[in-house]
């Protein structure tokens, strides 16, 4: 078996790929170009047309964008996203770092604990959303459990409360993602050179000071990786919203991705949906482009 494989790899046919490895990348590159950038361009074009139920070619300029930013529902979705993203990034970063530092104390059973914290990551957001919807249901769930325990007047109506519904999304999302952030920071902590730590200890640094002055400043790249995952995840949040609140009550917990889906696919406003998708794309790009630029510059400098 091995001989045939290596014989095949040595054949002139394969030789070609060995000399020009980019040929092997070509199919995936072509697929990526068509299905990623191609459809991105198409969405961009649709956002400039009067497309409703089906795509149309009637060019209307920026009309769909004007409609988009005149729509209170979209503006509310953007405001909700700002609140959601802020908490969705800050809380997992703080919690994840805290957990990582605690786990880094060479404690017993670290493997088991790590598994427990990472476990929510294994679930899809639809499952997370459904579980939390049941837990937070005003009539069933936690509230009912506490009432049965004797707290007869206990109410937990966050899902029905226009102010609090968004925070139920934050709770579920934080529960899901914190383990991942912890793992990223833990890897960063483990990467700190022991020699550096020894030297710092020799100089008298310990405990809090050691972390603040020596360890945390080296975690920059970990923080960056975590941010790069969290920010786009916040902007494209969709499944969690659908499963947990469905944007409700009313549109109090709606995020842009849900708006885009409903307009494009449920309400025959394809052009408007495409415009909202383009705005979301620009938000993600405004994060990714500076990062790519910085990397390119660093690459050029090195």
């Amino acid at each position, binding site marked *: 078996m091995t001989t045939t494989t290596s014989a095949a790899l040595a054949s002139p046919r394969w030789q070609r790929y060995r000399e020009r490895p980019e040929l092997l990348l070509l199919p995936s590159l072509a697929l990526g170009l068509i299905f990623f950038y191609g459809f991105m361009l198409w969405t961009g074009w649709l956002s400039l047309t009067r497309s409703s*139920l089906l*795509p149309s070619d009637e060019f209307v300029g920026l009309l769909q964008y004007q409609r988009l930013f005149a729509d209170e529902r979209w503006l509310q979705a953007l405001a909700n996203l700002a609140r959601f993203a802020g908490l969705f990034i800050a809380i997992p970063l703080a919690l994840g770092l805290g957990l990582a530092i605690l786990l880094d104390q060479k404690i017993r059973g670290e493997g088991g604990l790590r598994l427990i914290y990472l476990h929510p990551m294994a679930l899809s957001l639809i499952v997370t959303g459904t579980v939390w919807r049941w837990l937070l249901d005003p*009539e069933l769930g936690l509230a009912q459990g506490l009432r049965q325990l004797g707290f007869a007047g206990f109410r937990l*109506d966050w899902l029905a409360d*226009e102010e609090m519904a968004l925070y139920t999304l934050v709770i579920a999302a934080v529960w899901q993602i914190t383990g991942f952030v912890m793992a990223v920071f833990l890897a960063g902590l483990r990467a700190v050179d022991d020699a550096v730590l020894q030297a710092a200890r020799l100089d008298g640094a310990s405990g809090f000071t050691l972390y603040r002055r020596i360890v945390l400043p080296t975690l920059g790249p970990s923080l960056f990786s975590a941010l790069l995952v969290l920010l786009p995840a916040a902007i494209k949040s969709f499944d969690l919203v659908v499963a947990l*609140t469905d944007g409700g009550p*009313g*549109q109090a917990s709606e995020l842009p991705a849900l708006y885009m889906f*409903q307009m494009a696919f449920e*309400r025959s406003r394809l052009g408007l949906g495409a415009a909202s998708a383009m705005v979301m794309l620009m938000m993600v790009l405004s994060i990714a482009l500076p990062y790519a630029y910085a990397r390119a510059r660093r690459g050029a400098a090195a």
Partner: protein
Amino acid sequence: MKKKPLCLLLLAGLLPTLAAAQALDFLHWWTAGSEAQTLAELRRSALAAGVHWRESPVAGAGNANTLLKTRFLSGNPPALAQLDKAVSVWGEVVPLADLNPVAEAQHWGQVLPPEIAEELKFRGKVAAVPINVHRLNSLWSNRALLQRHGLAVPRSWPEFFAVADRLQAAGVLPLAIGGSPGQKLSVFANVVLGQGGADFFQRALVQRDASLLAGPQMLAMLRDFKRVKRYTDAGQVGRDWSVATALLIQGRAAMQFTGDWANGEFQKAGLVAGRDFDCSPAPGHGGEGAAGLHYFEFDRILFFQPLNARQADEQRRLAAALMQREASTRFARIKGGIPVRRDAELDGFNACARQSFADFRSGRRVLALSAQLPEASYGAIRDVVSAFWASDKMTAEQAQARLLKAARVKD
């Protein structure tokens, strides 16, 4: 040598599509319970009419509509599809069938009420077949619960609020409601119809007359709509309409506004109309002595442009078979609601369905907003109504301003 199997494979893949192109393909989302039974009945009628019948079931209306669009874009459209929008929504973007010969031969203009006969047409050509009618403006109530508190079914909105106040004071949940935006829109429509009447409803919400939408009458209606929320519970979020009906059946809530699909839930639980539960027109919708107002929607199948003369012939035969009086009545009996034909016999229907049918035949009929408005305007109005319901910060004046804006939304 190596290419042959590939060719065969491609051919084999092509063959079913060719065969499928010949059959009448029906795209639908009738996948569960009584809907699946209705589908079986449709299938029987189709086969009896000698039609090459084929089904493309999809779970959920949203997915089905997406698939339908995709199939049109890829050039492989079905011949028939279940429809939850106005016929004109599809008529404006794709070619439809012409069922005029069938409609004339079977006198659809006489056997169907004009509101339905008109809605089946696009640019003068009949392109859809109605299956059954669902009444939307019913107030369902638990009779025993009301009687225990010495109350009668409210016949006007002031009476409704009085009854609800009494129930609430007695610790009973006055109104069960589900979580969907449609449930709230239904309550709003009932308030507007009950206080302003059918003509006001048509002018304000369908023709979107700005002077009425911005007027004091609409403001009062919005206030009353919001007042209804006081009589509902926080458990409404994410609650299905059938769970809300179950609250009535279990005696945990007294009343519910919803369509006549609730009828089936009561019957399944072994409750008898007029003895255990009541179904009356919504407050202010008439019905005592005189015929009540009938606010309704109807299930229909849309026929797309046939591929060839044979398919056109099959489409017409199918349409004729589905509109036969016995077949049409059977669909309604299984699916719930009432038959579309005014000359239907109501054997095997319960008191609620009979009452609904009597009002449908002789009362004032108003077609559902979802079938009368373009999708975008309908959606925008529904958004405002459900946002106003959910928000304790939005004032009735703000809601009215947003409603006025929503009414202007186009495509």
